[in-house]
């Protein structure tokens, strides 16, 4: 049963050529989907449409049956850069989504600290974002997206600015949290091995269309060693060929 359905979606920015052309995609509950593609293929636009930040020109997007017209508290969004508010502490940043809706309770605080503990940042709760490293800021941003206990998580290349080791650590953190809360995730990236490591289903986008789709048959929980075994590498090679292919 579909959790998020993207049906025949077409979108173009004002007066320009269509960025997305009749895109179809379906995510089932609890699945981790990745969209791969070169810059400019429209994946960020698709993500924003799915999140309700943009409205499609044609086609529809439905979340659990109802039409998506604007951002919903059911969905979390993690941007390319952490986008933390520099003048608020880590804990206040994490609690921001709740602050905008109602007064913070002790329970809210406790849960936020628990989430921070999951990423190992509980002791940083009263620090300011600029005192944290890039990786730490990204973790805080992820925690923020989870504080309203969303059922669906949208992530727009959240780890692209980090170094390889930190990226792998964060990928493991993410998978752990998703597993704990049975999250559904739509994840955008241009990093092939990241896509394969994280997801259940990988899609490749090019010039506003989905050109390839495949299921990743690796068991969970994912382990670091899996990155270097033959199935993983063959899968990556296939994806690489698909991505490189449009120019031939």
């Amino acid at each position, binding site marked *: 049963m579909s959790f998020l359905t993207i049906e025949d979606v077409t979108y173009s920015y004002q007066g320009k050529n269509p960025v997305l052309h009749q895109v179809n995609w379906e995510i089932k509950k609890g699945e981790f989907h990745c969209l791969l593609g070169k810059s400019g293929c429209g994946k960020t636009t698709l993500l924003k449409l799915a999140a309700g930040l943009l409205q499609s020109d044609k086609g529809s997007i439905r979340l659990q049956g109802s039409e998506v017209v604007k951002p919903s508290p059911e969905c979390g*969004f993690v*941007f390319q850069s952490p986008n933390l508010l520099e003048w608020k502490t880590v804990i206040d940043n994490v609690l921001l989504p709740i602050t905008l809706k109602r007064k913070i309770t002790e329970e809210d605080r406790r849960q936020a600290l628990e989430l921070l503990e999951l990423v190992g940042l509980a002791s940083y709760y009263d620090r300011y974002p600029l005192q944290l490293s890039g990786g730490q800021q990204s973790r805080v941003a992820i925690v923020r997206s989870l504080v309203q206990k969303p059922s669906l998580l949208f992530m727009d290349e959240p780890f692209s600015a980090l170094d390889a080791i930190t990226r792998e650590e964060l990928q493991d953190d993410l998978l752990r949290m998703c597993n704990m809360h049975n999250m559904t995730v739509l994840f955008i990236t241009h990093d092939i091995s990241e896509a394969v490591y994280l997801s259940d289903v990988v899609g490749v986008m090019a010039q506003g269309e989905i050109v390839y789709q495949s299921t990743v048959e690796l068991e969970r929980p994912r382990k670091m060693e899996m990155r270097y075994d033959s199935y993983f590498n063959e899968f990556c090679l296939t994806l690489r060929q698909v991505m490189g292919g449009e120019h031939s």
Partner: protein
Amino acid sequence: MKKMPIYSFLLLVLLLALWEMAAGTMSELVLPAPSIIWFTLLDGMKSGYFTQHIIRTALEVLLGLLFGGTLGFVIGILMGEVTFLRKLLFPYIIASQAVPKLALAPLFILWFGFGMTSKVVITALVCFFPLLESTVTAIQSSDKQKQELFRMLGATRFQTLIHLKIPAGMPGILAGLRVSAVLAVVGAVVGEFIGGSEGLGALIIASQGMMDTPLMFATLILLTVMGMILYLMITWFEKKWLKPYKKEK
């Protein structure tokens, strides 16, 4: 480099010594010596001569800063948020920048009388524009990505203003406040020059008639100190507020 404050202080001592020597050759009316000015200052402070004037000018400055600054801030927010307003008022704001506000002082004395009201109005007008400008710029220049975050979180326009745009713009707004503070002292003094019976500006005019140049200098020193205190207060406040904005070890 640690010795810099000492060097600056030594420079001051040297300048004062030179001044003292130069003043010895001239009449007190033209250039009084620092020692005489110092005694006049001390004397006036002890006898309470300066007290009411200091309070008067300080009150005018603070009230003018409060009203002019607050008004500039509020209208700045409105103009920053509402494009229609901004485009409507923009040419008038530009035009009024060219008007030397202090030249309007006699007009305000005419309209608002010789009491404190006219001085507060002049000062408020002078403080209004720097704060208006810095607020409009600050509101308009908030990070687009963060605005998207707030949209994602379902924030209302007002919430985005309070939680994002204003805090994000504080560095710029406080810089505008700093400029206003210094100008506020000028505004109050000019108002008193033109039609004042009390205050440090009025005292400068009076010291002319009293042919008391040391008194004039002493009053100038008091005004400078007042301006400096105000400036430093705002700078201190800026540092405290803006601490998180800067990277720290």
